[in-house]
């Protein structure tokens, strides 16, 4: 499908044949590696596009505030400090595969009419006292003011329109939020086609009907805050209402993300994600047991060579006794070096005992 009107530029829908994630991409980027599973290249969808759900243009975009340079620094920090890191887990490889990506969230507008009731809290000051006493100087009094809250019941009616109430558009939204942190949605800007020039857009896999359950508490929170302001209160609690929703309109909000990956010991791609707004990095940092084992084998081989040379010196020592000292020392050295072979394996094992972060 080629779309140019709603999105402001030529886009196509591409799907990953491995994980079935769907993306909106510029036509020339339709064959990129899937930034989710990194197991296959994307394939443009040419048939049945009309039946694909939730292909709606976004209304707002949270811009990338983490530059490519900053993202590279985060990658270097991520890849550093891992003993016997997988060969592919290096900054250069990670940097070369970085793919900017937008994650979707639903934005819903709607009219609400409701009756509501709540307890409105009003701050007021009381005068209190703090006193100090000592045998030498007697009492010293200090007057202080303390703020208290007076709670009063309020009821009311509400006829309001609410814009841009957010709700998750991905089934993995909660896991992504836990991994990457919460995005500051106040920074969102109106969508322009430029956004697609630099990044892919993940398509929602959650229907508005499913997301509505998450939007309702957000509507209630927005209404509660407005009712607090309407009542001129400083606080509100026990807010309850019986709302009727009409004229719902759904659009998308895009959240920025950098995605890259490395191949682990088994050649499986491991994703590394960077929050495009806060710079928080998420990925699996594991030492390569294969590399540790190889290092151990090299050490064992060196120990074997030393032992062999010691044996030779021992045989020669039968003829020239001073060589027996060399043979003895060589044997001890070979033993020490051989025992040292366990160090790489233990080190890698210890590092991998840390909690593994997976998405």
């Amino acid at each position, binding site marked *: 499908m080629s779309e140019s009107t709603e999105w402001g530029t030529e886009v196509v829908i591409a799907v990953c044949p491995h994980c079935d994630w769907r993306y909106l991409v510029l036509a020339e980027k339709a064959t990129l590696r899937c930034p989710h599973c990194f197991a296959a290249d994307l394939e443009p969808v040419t048939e049945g596009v009309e039946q694909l759900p939730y292909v709606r243009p976004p209304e707002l975009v949270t811009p990338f505030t983490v530059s490519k340079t900053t993202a590279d620094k985060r990658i270097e920090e991520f890849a550093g400090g891992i003993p016997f890191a997988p060969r592919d887990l290096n900054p250069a490889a990670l940097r070369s595969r970085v793919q900017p990506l937008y994650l979707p969230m639903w934005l819903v507008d709607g009219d609400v009419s409701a009756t509501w009731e709540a307890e409105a809290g009003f701050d007021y000051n*009381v005068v209190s*006292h703090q006193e100090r006493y*000592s*045998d030498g100087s007697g009492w010293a009094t200090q007057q202080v003011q303390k703020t208290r809250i007076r709670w009063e019941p*309020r009821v009311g009616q*509400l006829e*309001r329109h609410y814009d841009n109430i957010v709700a998750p558009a991905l089934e993995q939204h909660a896991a992504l939020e836990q991994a990457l942190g919460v995005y500051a949605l106040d920074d969102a800007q109106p969508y322009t086609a430029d956004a697609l020039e630099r990044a892919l857009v993940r398509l929602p896999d959650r229907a508005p009907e499913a997301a509505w359950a998450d939007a309702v508490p957000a509507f209630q929170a927005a209404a509660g805050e*407005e009712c607090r302001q*309407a*009542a001129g209160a400083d606080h509100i609690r026990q807010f309850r209402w019986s709302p009727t929703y009409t004229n719902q309109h759904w659009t998308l909000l895009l959240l920025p993300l950098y995605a890259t990956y490395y191949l682990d010991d088994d050649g499986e791609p491991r994703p590394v994600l960077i929050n495009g707004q806060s710079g928080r990095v998420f990925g699996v940092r594991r030492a390569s047991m294969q590399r540790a084992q190889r290092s151990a084998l090299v050490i064992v081989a060196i120990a074997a060579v030393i032992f062999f040379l010691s044996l030779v010196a021992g045989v020669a020592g039968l003829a020239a006794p001073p060589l027996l000292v060399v043979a003895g020392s060589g044997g001890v050295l070979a033993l020490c070096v051989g025992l040292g072979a366990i160090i790489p394996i233990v080190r890698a094992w210890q590092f991998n005992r840390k909690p593994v972060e997976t998405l």
Partner: protein
Amino acid sequence: MTETFPPPGFIPTASAIPGIAVYAPAPEEAEAQPEIVEFKCPQCQAMTAYSVADGGLRCTYCGYYEPPTRTLVGKGAQEFEFTVETLAVASQAHGWGEARKEVQCQNCNARATLPPGRLTHTCPFCGSNRVLQQDAPQDALRPRFLIPFKIEADACRPIAEKWLGSSWMTPKSLKQSTVAGFTGIYLPYWTFDAVTQAEWKAEVGHHETRRRYNASTKSWESHTVTVWRWESGQVRKFFDDVLVPGTARLSGVLLSQLQNYDTHALVAYEPQYLAGFLAQAYDVPLEKAWEEGREAMRAATRDTCRGQASTSRIRNFSMALDFSDESWRYVLAPVYMTVFQYDGQPYQVMINGQTGAIAGQRPVDWNKVWLVVGAVVAPGALLTLLGVLAIVLGLLLPPALGAAAVLLVPGIILLIIGGIIAFTIVGKARRMSDV
């Protein structure tokens, strides 16, 4: 959610956001309080007054009875916080107005001028009772609660006579004096509640017995030393209904002796309770009274802190104290007062109108007092004098020195004991007559 909208008792209030209507509970309408409430019997037009025996209004002529409309509130009587606004208003106000009030009796048209703070008036010509209800600067600063009289005026005389005869220091002729004319008056009181949270530390002395070797006597000796150790602790203390008089026109010492009021008996203010009694508005402002209340609370908290120490030997004591949950009430409490004359001097007597506790000034027969003081001090003085004479005699006849010791030691001890008793008697006598 409520089924009817708006719920009963809610009225529209201002909303800061268009599209949102806000309803708040309708404010309680302040009862229209007539400036002067007159008490007349609806049956015979004679005067009515509060009857302590019946607990309501009673006509002294036809027996008509009207029970009070308000109920017992006790400790649940509403308390007020020390808000910035209340303190600002209370610091300027003094009860119910400062100016003298001129009232005209609607029964006989006689005019009378009342002093500031007087809340009731009984016409001296026709005897009709009225209660004045002037505006207060804040509703909380009206007397909202009171403790009704429980002791009848007739009971005051026997209480006073028993009290007058209860001390040997009073003149014998006083027992024949008449202490009558008790006037019931509602006095203003502030009640305070608060929680004190204190942290203290001090050096506490502990006696320890130690042994040391005395080289000169070549023996081990025991001696006691005081070892000082730092101790600390925390105290949380709740104070409920600490009473502070709202008037400085009466003796604080006498009032403090009457202050065993039971606030469980508090009732909501109703002018009927005041009919036939005098009533005084406060002249000690809230903040000043609270200062006095705080002093009592912090002293009690300090005593509790010191009591936590493991011994009573304490030095370098210090503490930090925070007040919280402070609240106050303005109440009226019943007192009977009278002044009796003795030997041309006036003596004031007060009786707690709820409990019957009595306090007051009593004349002192100082001849009697000095006689007793002399009798108490004389044995010690005599023995001491004889002991001194025996010492002088012992200079000539050394065996007399033994008798001197026998006389002097108990003499001095008796003299000291007699002196203490005499000092206590004189102090008590002075307090009786000079309050």
